[in-house]
């Protein structure tokens, strides 16, 4: 969900110019409740590896939500409009979250507990999560009976073939690229050479890559083992597309959907109405419910506005819930301080991890002692403060987030958990040993409200250790374009990255594989470490998810502790609030937000 990170955190923060009511003096701040223990439990529950479910787990209908009722309309205020409705273009987290309601894929992540904490990968359109006989090179899927698109036509293997072949067409350019790269067995954007025009000029993927022997069977063939395929297929980006209804570019405006809801109307930047899809059969779907008659989605609702409306909880707001919006930083303490409001909230981790990149292409940054000095000196508490405190951001240890397998809660090489404000004394000593006291350090920061706030405090912390910090603002719209240039002026800059599915294989290779360094690539720190590169290749071949997770975890620790090309700055969390008449609210760790599939009106 890299791009989700981009959009969610690069977005402009808007000043809320509310009226000031002089109600006298203010009370002091407070940390609401003792959440340390619960956080630990959250982290532990997420470390459990997500298993592959069998055919029985993949059968519909989905287990009923306790107390659920049918009927009613839910209002959904969202901040960002949807840029894409074509599943192949969907990568951004807020788009894939709501798309759970109208797009279906071969597999899906099924919540096996009512709090959205435990999951297994099950077959969604397929009868199971996939079977492989050769350790992950060949994967076989069988489609269920009775699955239909919203237009009433049956979903067959032809549609699945279309779904994957059109990914190679040039107009599909914002979705995930994992499976395309696996099929073509190349990294980067070279995969398009496998089928340059997609299926539109009569060419098709050879049987050695994708096989559809009959209307119900789909077989994937890869040159190397990819044990992660069932996870990848659970992404909305690989949801099924109708072969008959495929209108190429226009599909993005008017897709043929398959989920329990269909799109009645969509006005970009304004609103979307979702209504029940009569051709959806609950018996075929182990993941979704169809309790609510209608979702009225409105866009351009800022966090402050949606929070204020949901706090007020009057009239229409009682049956409102935002899928995307968190409680804004300013109102967080108020919401959590009131038990009535707190009972309407859910909270959990977002997949994103903030990390301060140290630009290894700059000669001055090649000195490991300097990098270690930065790692010791950098205060991470400003990052937490800027996003709203402990409920919105957790002080990190490593680069692997608590929601991802391979996370180690005790890993903390730079002592950030004890000293979140940094350790200037140790840093100064290292800087003296390197003979670089007073060296210039150009710090590129995103020009958002948060960026301004944390960058000044971080600069103050680094200056205490003897750096001459030069802060440079970068406009938020072009931040990631600027810092992902090979030649940029910034010695240090903070980026946020989230796993696409709960495995470090979607974190470490894209961020730290030295062979991917290119303009616009996500190897922001430009690390090219031979050990890291060879380990990535080795671990990618491990087919046992548990062993792979442990190996990824170790590699992640090696990167943070021994390479020191990034300093983790925070694990993103969020608190979301729902209206008092909304039932079935649960924070789903895989969706990283409120699960829209199980909501009902009380």
């Amino acid at each position: 969900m890299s791009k989700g990170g981009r959009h969610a955190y690069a977005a402009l923060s808007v000043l809320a110019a509310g009226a000031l009511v002089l109600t006298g003096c203010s009370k002091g701040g407070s940390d609401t409740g003792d959440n340390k223990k619960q956080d630990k439990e959250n982290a532990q529950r997420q470390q459990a590896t997500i298993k592959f479910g069998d055919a029985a787990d993949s059968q519909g209908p989905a287990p009923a939500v306790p107390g659920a009722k049918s009927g009613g309309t839910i209002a959904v205020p969202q901040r960002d409009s949807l840029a894409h409705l074509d599943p192949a273009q969907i990568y951004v987290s807020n788009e894939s979250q709501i798309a759970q309601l109208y797009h279906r894929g071969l597999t899906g992540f099924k919540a096996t507990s009512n709090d959205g904490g435990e999951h297994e990968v099950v077959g969604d359109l397929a009868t199971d999560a996939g079977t492989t006989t050769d350790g992950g090179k060949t994967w076989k899927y069988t489609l269920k009976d009775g699955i239909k698109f919203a237009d009433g036509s049956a979903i067959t293997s032809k549609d699945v073939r279309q779904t994957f072949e059109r990914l190679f067409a040039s107009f599909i350019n914002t979705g995930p690229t994992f499976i395309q790269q696996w099929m073509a067995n190349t990294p980067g954007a070279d995969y398009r050479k496998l089928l340059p025009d997609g299926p539109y000029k009569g060419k098709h993927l050879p049987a050695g890559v994708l096989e559809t022997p009959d209307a119900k069977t789909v077989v994937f063939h890869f040159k190397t083992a990819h044990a992660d395929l069932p996870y990848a297929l659970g992404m909305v980006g690989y949801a099924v597309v109708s072969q008959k209804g495929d209108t190429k570019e226009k599909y993005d405006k008017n897709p043929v959907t398959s989920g329990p809801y269909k799109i009645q109307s969509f006005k970009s930047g304004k609103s979307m109405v979702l209504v029940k899809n009569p051709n959806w059969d609950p018996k075929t779907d182990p993941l979704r419910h169809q309790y609510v008659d209608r979702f009225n989605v409105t866009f351009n609702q800022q966090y402050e506005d949606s929070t204020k409306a949901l706090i007020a909880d009057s009239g229409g707001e009682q049956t409102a819930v935002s899928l995307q919006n968190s409680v804004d930083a300013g109102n967080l303490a108020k919401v959590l301080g009131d038990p009535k409001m707190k009972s309407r909230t859910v909270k959990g981790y977002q997949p994103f991890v903030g990390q301060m990149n140290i630009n290894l292409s700059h000669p001055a940054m090649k000195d490991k002692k300097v990098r270690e000095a930065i790692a010791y000196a950098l205060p991470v508490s400003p990052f937490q403060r800027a996003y709203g405190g402990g409920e919105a951001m957790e002080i990190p240890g490593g680069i692997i987030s608590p929601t991802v397998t391979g996370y180690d809660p005790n890993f903390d090489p730079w002592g950030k958990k004890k000293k979140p404000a940094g350790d200037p004394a140790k840093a100064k000593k290292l800087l003296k040993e390197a003979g670089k006291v007073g060296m210039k350090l150009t710090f590129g920061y995103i020009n958002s409200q948060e960026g301004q706030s944390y960058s000044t405090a971080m600069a103050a912390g680094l200056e205490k250790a003897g750096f001459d910090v030069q802060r440079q603002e970068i406009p938020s719209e072009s931040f990631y374009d600027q810092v992902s240039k090979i030649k940029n002026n910034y010695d240090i800059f903070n980026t946020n990255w989230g796993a696409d599915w709960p495995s470090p294989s979607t974190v470490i290779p894209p961020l730290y594989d030295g062979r991917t360094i290119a303009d616009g690539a996500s190897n922001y720190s430009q690390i090219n470490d031979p050990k890291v590169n060879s380990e990535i290749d080795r671990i990618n071949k491990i087919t046992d998810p548990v062993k792979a997770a442990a190996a990824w975890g170790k590699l992640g620790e090696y990167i943070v502790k021994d390479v020191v090309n990034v300093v983790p700055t925070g694990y993103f969390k969020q608190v979301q609030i729902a209206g008092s008449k909304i039932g079935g609210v649960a924070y789903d760790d895989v969706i990283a937000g409120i699960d829209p599939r199980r909501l009902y009106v009380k």
Partner: protein
Amino acid sequence: MVDGAAQPAATPEAKALEGRSPGQLMWIRFKRDRTGVISAFVVIFFFLIAAAAPLIAKLYGKNPYTVYADERPELFDSAGVPVQPNGGISSEFWFGLEPGNGYDVFTKLLYGIRTSLMISVAVTIAAVLTGILLGVTAGYLGGRTDYFISRVIDFLLAFPAQLFFIASMPVVVSLFVSPTDETPVYVRVVALILVQWFLGWMSLGRVLRGTTLALREREFIEAARVSGAPPGRIIRRELLPNVVTPILVQGTYLLPNFVTAEAGLSFLGVGIVEPTPDWGQMFSKASTELVMQNDITYMFFPGISMIIFIVAFNLLGDSVRDAFDPKTAR
């Protein structure tokens, strides 16, 4: 001599009737105006604390750049809101601590006033000098020069000032800065002064042109001209002393305008930015949801101090005007 007896009694009276300069008259009239005197003291107080900010901060033992949220984490919750009520006001932090990074509000306010006043005074001086130069030139020379300068004034007056400031600040700043360095504070200050000066001098220039135009036809100027005085001398010795009143009056109206304009720009994020303390930027901080919901006390310090300053300065301006020119109705 019958009248002679009365003479000695008249002597003290004659002393009192001794010739007074317009300046002295103004001073006497001004001293009688209680509002004016109080306002003057308030304004002087603000300028004093602005000038002495580093000294006060030194005696107080803090500076506005220390991130107390990291230095003294026990005073804050994890979101950076002071734990103590009323924004953490205590004997140690007199005006409390700023939510967020936890800067000391007292020194921040002092330095903020200092920044804002320094910029505004510089803009006022620049605008007054430009106004005198162009206004008096246009009025005295007349003809084509007058026409040209007046059209420039009309043109600039038609500019939407606030929009121009917002649009041109980033452009002016980028003219000065090298790509690897931080934008130095002085660049932002110079840019703020330039931008405000550019659209700040016209009203005064126009008033001076009118006054000069009227004075030019007066007998004493004509007399000077006939007696062969060069134009430079006429302007310096005859004209300028007669336009001191409008200059002073306009100047006292201009300065508070510049203070609020500068604060407005910093509020919008195009003026002075964190961590440099600035009056307007404190407002911008105070209007965030974090402060609004958790620490409303913070708003009072920049708010009340600015209201007092602006009101006092405007009252002072009125009093100065009354003292110089008691006949004119406001």
